[in-house]
């Protein structure tokens, strides 16, 4: 259904391939440098796709993958009330993802709907940040990750709601309300567990050190951000970062936790360079849809 978007760049075009084969068959002289360079030298980085499409994938994939992870808790939470609460957040996130991917499909204009984008892209075509694809760990890890993400998400939605792209602004306006509640829920848990018992404090403190290496990626700015800014989707990443720092520091302080320092950062998700966990998540998520190509459900 969906031709991998990287295909045109990943393989030389037919003409080049032909040259290589001919060359090998004909035993090209070792000194023919031009042919050698032409056959193997690639670009360092592939040209970006339509930046708005790319940007919407990033937003959508973050929420799809995190919603999926949260839904793994359904039926396995620490207490019934929390099973219900966590499921609510998962539902909001998958709902936001569906809207964003649907819009991405429209922007792309290749007749892919939200399900085609969710179920028929490979891991390397996913654009989510690394934090959201990490396995759930214990409940404290899940809630802390949720808070770090929610805080960013709320601030981002507030900016996007005022943007020039009407469809995206409409999604953002609705998402703000949902995300406000998500922040309230996850931040309360971080505070409860951080300032709870000795054991809970130790667990969350450990999770914080684990997760912190994925936080810079949330604020990375690249050509896609610059390009969508020209379309009126302007996000002041530096300003976002400082507001996020304040919000996170406030909650961590109340949780008697310290903001980690000197942690080496990891990123790559925005370019499809993921951790190994995403592949397994997608293998599970996509198995039914991919086993029955073209089927309706």
């Amino acid at each position, binding site marked *: 259904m969906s031709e991998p978007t990287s295909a045109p760049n990943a393989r030389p075009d037919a003409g080049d391939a032909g040259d290589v084969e001919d060359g090998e068959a004909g035993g090209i002289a070792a000194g023919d440098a031009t042919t050698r360079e032409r056959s193997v030298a690639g670009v360092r980085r592939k040209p970006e796709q339509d930046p708005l499409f790319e940007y919407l994938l990033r937003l959508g994939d973050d929420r799809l993958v995190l919603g999926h992870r949260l839904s793994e808790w359904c039926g396995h939470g620490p207490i019934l009330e929390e099973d219900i609460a966590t499921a609510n957040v998962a539902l909001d996130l*998958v709902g936001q993802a569906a809207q964003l991917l649907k819009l991405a499909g429209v922007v792309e204009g290749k007749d892919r709907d939200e399900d085609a984008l969710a179920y028929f892209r490979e891991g390397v075509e996913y654009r989510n940040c690394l934090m959201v694809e990490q396995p759930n760990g214990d409940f404290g890890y899940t809630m802390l990750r949720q808070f770090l993400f929610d805080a960013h998400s709320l601030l981002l939605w507030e900016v996007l709601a005022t943007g020039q792209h009407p469809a995206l602004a409409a999604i953002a306006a609705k998402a703000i309300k949902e995300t406000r509640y998500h922040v309230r829920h996850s931040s309360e848990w971080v505070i409860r567990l951080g300032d*709870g*018992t000795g054991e809970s404090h130790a667990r969350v403190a450990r999770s914080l050190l684990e997760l912190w290496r994925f936080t810079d990626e949330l604020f990375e700015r690249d050509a896609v951000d610059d390009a969508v800014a020209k379309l009126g989707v302007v996000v002041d990443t530096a300003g976002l970062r400082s507001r996020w720092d304040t919000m996170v520091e406030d909650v961590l302080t109340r949780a008697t936790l310290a903001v980690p320092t000197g942690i080496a950062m990891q990123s790559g998700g925005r370019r499809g360079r993921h951790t190994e966990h995403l592949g397994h998540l997608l293998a599970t998520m996509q198995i039914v849809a991919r086993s029955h190509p073209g089927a309706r459900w």
Partner: protein
Amino acid sequence: MATPAKTPPPAPPADDPALVAAFEARIAAGESIEPKDWMPARYRKQLTRMMAQHAHSEIVGMLPEGNWITRAPTLRRKMSLIAKVQDEAGHGLYIYCGTETLGVERDELVEQLHDGRAKYSSIFNYPTLSWADMGVIGWFVDGAAIVNQTVLAKASYGPYARAMVRICKEENFHKRQGYEICATLAKGTPAQRAMLQDAIDRFWWPSLMMFGPSDKDSPNSAELLRWRVKRKTNDELRQRFVNLTVPQAQAIGVTLPDPDLRFNEETKNWEFGEIDWAEFREVISGNGPCNRERLAARNAAHAEGAWVREAALAHAAKRHRTTEAA
């Protein structure tokens, strides 16, 4: 209205015949019994047992369907399934709260479930093996639950009946989404149709068993009916379910795995074959295909959540102290 669990009503003088007579007169008059009202010890006991079993079934019932949330084939189906499994958690919660009005703590009941003393619906001890199971469970299992719960909404115990009213509203969505999945698969590819028929073949008989033993083998039935803890017999409810379901199967062109299924023109009932009660007893007594897995999953969730529950309490105590001091 729930009265605080901390103050269970004082133990009644062991079933004074005059009080029992007055109680039964109230029931006969269709009155609803409230938590602080006097009730015979056996009424309280039977009610607690029945509500606990019901609540446990809702909670264990989250597992077979939760098993497919991560594999739902479209985003819309994923959301419906999360919402449905979430509702089941709610159902368990509402009913446990009902037992708490009788002075029985949820923790106490959960402990009975976890160590294998308590029973829950046998249907949830069958594995979910394909996506079609999500359709068939919604259609059959939630369908059966609706048949059961619609009459329980008129049960004599107020808190239980009120929980049922809330639950019935939600179950309708469950059954509809299940039947919609089935109808879609029935119109789908040959592989999808085969998947659907296979799920129906596996879940039909266990769904009939959900209504419990036949009336002649159901020792508590008469008393429960007289006290209006139950309002219809197991066999009556089972028959109603079959009568409702057969036309729905016809409508989407699937078969039910029972060669003896036929319409009786006189009684207007769909008569069905003999239920394998030996299988039912095996599953109920812990030897179904997934009994161990279900209890292990519940125990693991509870054990792994202990530090979370404890920390939340500890934090609330700290906060309380700070506000007091301030």
